[in-house]
């Protein structure tokens, strides 16, 4: 039965992907991309990757959709000119041949995966008691492959630096995004007053559940970031100027704590990011708790874009 539903999900997924590639209008393509992200969440669930489904639900279906929709609306005036540049039939045929070749090679590889499949699950199962956490994914992210997570947090930070570096000189240090003005009786203001308290609780719950059940800092941080963005979009609170010290402290807090504890591990346990015996769970919780606000702020800043308004006056 579950394979019957998989066929449906696969077909719908491909149909939406095809829509986003072939439809003429960019906005229509993006509008198709949002349900596509939600459908991917279903696909991860069918493949029994619940943690991944949670991440996709938060980032793929929530933040990415909002990011692209906003961009498509802003870039709408340039749409007609861009459409005129569509390549001729020769390029299309060549691209089709190239794409089919790539897809065919990958399909053959994926159909001929070795049997029995190589897996690290028994290894993880053997060593997970040493970490003190119950969710194997959290154990991998913060203990067995902690270096990946550390580098990821730093990559996200570089992403923010990259976005900020797009600011015009006169706006540097100012507030990101456009000024929001919304009437006090707007329904959006109502939503931005009611939803964030609930959303923040759910975000923290998902973060906390990550120790033993699907969840964790990325998913929790995304929900919290989305709530903050909602408040900003409603005009209730403006985006903070990027020159604020507290903002920058929160941004680097997570990676800094991560690196500091990693170095401490080098002193006490003999290797960078090694955890001393019996302390693993506490260290993991400290790192996760430090990463949560950093990730939330990082995601918000990636979403709102570079500073666009000078600090004093327009």
């Amino acid at each position: 039965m579950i394979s019957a539903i998989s066929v449906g999900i696969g077909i719908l997924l491909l149909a939406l992907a095809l829509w986003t590639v072939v439809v003429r209008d960019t906005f229509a393509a993006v509008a198709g991309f949002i349900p596509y992200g939600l459908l991917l969440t279903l696909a991860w669930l069918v493949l029994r990757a619940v943690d991944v489904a949670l991440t996709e639900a938060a980032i793929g279906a929530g933040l990415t959709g909002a990011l692209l929709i906003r961009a498509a609306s802003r870039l709408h005036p340039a749409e007609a000119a861009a459409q005129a540049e569509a390549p001729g039939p020769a390029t299309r045929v060549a691209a089709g041949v190239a794409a089919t070749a790539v897809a065919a090679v990958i399909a053959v590889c994926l159909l001929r995966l070795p049997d029995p499949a190589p897996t690290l699950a028994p290894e993880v199962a053997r060593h997970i008691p040493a970490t003190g956490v119950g969710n194997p994914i959290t154990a991998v992210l913060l203990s067995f492959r902690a270096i990946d997570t550390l580098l990821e947090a730093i990559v996200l930070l570089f992403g923010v630096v990259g976005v900020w570096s797009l600011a015009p000189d006169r706006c540097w240090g100012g507030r990101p995004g456009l000024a929001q003005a919304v009437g006090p009786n707007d329904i959006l203001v109502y939503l931005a007053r009611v939803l964030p308290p609930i959303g923040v609780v759910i975000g923290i719950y998902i973060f906390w559940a990550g120790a033993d059940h699907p969840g964790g800092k990325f998913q929790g941080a995304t929900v919290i970031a989305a709530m903050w963005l909602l408040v900003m979009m409603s005009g209730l609170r403006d985006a903070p100027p990027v020159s604020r010290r507290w903002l920058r402290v929160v941004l680097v807090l997570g990676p800094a704590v991560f690196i500091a504890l990693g170095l401490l591990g080098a002193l006490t346990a003999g290797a960078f990011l090694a955890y001393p015996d019996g302390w693993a769970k506490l260290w993991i919780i400290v790192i996760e708790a430090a990463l949560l606000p950093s990730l939330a702020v990082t995601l918000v800043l990636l979403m709102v874009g570079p500073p666009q308004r000078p600090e004093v006056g327009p």
Partner: protein
Amino acid sequence: MADVLIADVLIAVCALVLLMVAVGLLSVLRGPTRADRMMAAQLFGTGGIAALLLVGTASGVDSVVDVALTLAVLAAFASVAFVKADRQSEGDTANEEGT
């Protein structure tokens, strides 16, 4: 064996809900207006969550409720971004009457 039966019923219902959502998407994505197209996200916000809960419960994944909670909080987010960007590109937030 009742559990197996119920699991099959849930999967079947899920398939039908997905079918309905797919047919709805077909109609909504064609437009003609951008607001019509934005309904696609809304459609999946409800139908998608229903399908998610059904598949998850049928395959015995308890934490599917957490995924559904995340989706429920965030499903509206893209639509809000659309409405905001739309207003800004028109630049007429002033004559928006509040009701």
